[in-house]
């Protein structure tokens, strides 16, 4: 802000007639100072962020690696038996559940979200846009526990009737709740990306005789590809890290989900269910930290992977 007022000075210059060299000098100094201050401020912001991230990785990782002093690497990653009270720490089932839950969520949410985004950005009349966008923004802001509660009281009884199971809890219920949660996020970011596609692309496509569908599928969506991928990343990280909504509907039983209605457990829900009931210096506690660390690593890898894909895609386009 201060820099913009400084820039107005040269015009005042002429009014005052007597530009003192001293004033000029101090102005110059002030601008320099402000610039340098901002430089340090930004540098500090970046460093602070990296520092916190580093601390998280360091401390979670440090405790997590203690796990392998007591149990083998292979047991943790390849055994499906998670019964900590009997010294079995096989997290494979829980890891697989996490991945399949995330995949299932995205499979349900992404097509609908992108379709909705195209509708809002391209097809719908203005008044619908003006309603849909704020509504979606509101949906993004709803706390996850609210979604979880709705899942527990509305979705689960419905699924129970539909499937004939006694308990409706499981991957399907969790994926439905998560899909509903990430849908507005994916939709809004995709919508923005699609709106950013230059008008001339569309005009050129129409000029070549494309139908509307062809313009959407062949030109607009590929051109907005990176933005849509960013949207999917955002949705995915929210899905993989979501805890409260999942805990309420997944059944919290540490076992591999063989069917969609098996009460199961994912990394986040397992950590939150058990962390308050374990002793600090126990393998159990370390194993839970290992799960948290794994969650971190999984989201890092997924984000890097999709970034890489996005870059490749945009190079081609």
């Amino acid at each position, binding site marked *: 802000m201060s820099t913009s007022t400084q820039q107005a000075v040269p015009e005042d210059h002429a009014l005052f007639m007597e530009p003192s060299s001293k004033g000029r000098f101090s102005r110059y100094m002030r601008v320099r100072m402000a610039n340098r201050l901002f430089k340090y401020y930004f540098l500090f912001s970046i460093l602070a962020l990296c520092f916190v991230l580093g601390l998280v990785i360091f401390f979670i990782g440090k405790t997590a690696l203690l796990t392998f002093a007591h149990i083998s690497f292979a047991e943790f990653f390849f055994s499906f038996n998670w019964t900590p009270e009997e010294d079995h720490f096989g997290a494979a089932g829980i890891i697989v559940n996490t991945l399949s839950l995330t995949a299932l969520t995205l499979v349900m949410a992404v097509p609908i979200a992108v379709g909705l985004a195209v509708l809002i950005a391209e097809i719908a009349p203005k008044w619908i846009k003006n309603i849909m966008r704020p509504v979606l923004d509101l949906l993004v802001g709803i706390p996850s526990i609210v979604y979880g509660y709705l899942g527990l*009281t509305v979705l689960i009884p419905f699924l129970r009737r539909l499937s004939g199971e006694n*308990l409706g809890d499981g991957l399907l219920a969790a994926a439905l709740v998560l899909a509903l949660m990430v849908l507005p996020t994916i939709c809004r970011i995709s919508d923005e990306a699609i709106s950013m596609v230059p008008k001339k692309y569309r005009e050129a496509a129409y000029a070549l005789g494309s139908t509307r569908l062809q313009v959407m599928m062949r030109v607009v969506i590929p051109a907005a590809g990176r933005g849509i991928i960013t949207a999917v990343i955002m949705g995915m990280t929210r899905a993989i890290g979501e805890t409260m909504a999942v*805990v309420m509907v997944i059944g919290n*039983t*540490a076992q591999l989900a063989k069917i969609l209605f098996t*009460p199961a457990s994912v990394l986040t829900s397992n950590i939150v269910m058990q962390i308050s*009931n374990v*002793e600090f210096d126990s393998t159990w506690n370390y194993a839970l930290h290992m799960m948290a660390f794994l969650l971190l690593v999984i989201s890092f890898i997924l984000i890097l992977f999709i970034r890489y894909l996005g870059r490749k895609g945009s190079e081609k386009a």
Partner: protein
Amino acid sequence: MKLFKKMSLLAAVSLVAVSALVGSASAASSLSGKITINGSTALLPLTLQAAKEFQKLNPKVKIAASGKGSVTGPQAVKKGIAEIGACDWDASMDVPGFKAFDGQVANKVAVIPFATIANKNVKVNNLTTEQLKGIYSGKITNWKDVGGDNADIVVITRAFGSGTRVNYQSKALAGGDIVKKEKNYKEVGSSGDMKTAVATTPNAIGYIDLVYVNSDVKAISYNGVAPTTDNVINGTYKIWAYGYYMTKGQPTGATKAFIEYVQSQKFQQGSLKKLKFIPVSAMH
């Protein structure tokens, strides 16, 4: 830069104000000190109420209470983070799943009754120890085997390590196991979730602190005795446990005074009863 000046002025003023406040607080009353209480969420309402009353009498004592899980109580005491660790079992002795915390003293502060509950569509009114053991170990899976309708039993249980589960297993199941199943089995994280899950799942069975039981769920008698405070006091209903304040060695100073206040007749017969716990003295 003007903004900067204003900010620093504001900071200076607030600093002065805070130091003045701190200064004025350190005056009056004999007993002083800081008590940190950690542990059981079941005992938290009682702890908070007692802390409020105790601080009114002793303004120089600062009490910080929080709840996380029973086992965190004695652990925090062991690590020196907290003076008092609230725990739903006697942590100075071994219980299923947890070793004794050496050198800690268990101070009884309340009696907590637990109840077996079922969804309201369940016709069964009474279960014996053997029947409950069968249900939780997975040997009995249909309500018709215990005198109810022909329907699968849906077992809802607390996660391993929950104080409620430790007590329920040792009292109601006489040490019996709770076995994980692929179907009709679900774990929940808190008493509130337990109540919601049992109330909304047909054919469900669960267990909970008696204070949570209301008309949303059906309370089931144990060996023919209904779960009521009166039956706990007259000794016929067996599923109950003491709530403990764990301390490192015998408590001293402010901590000792606080525990004595909680154990006093005035608090036990007054606020504690209002919170639907049972006074320790009622169990003799």
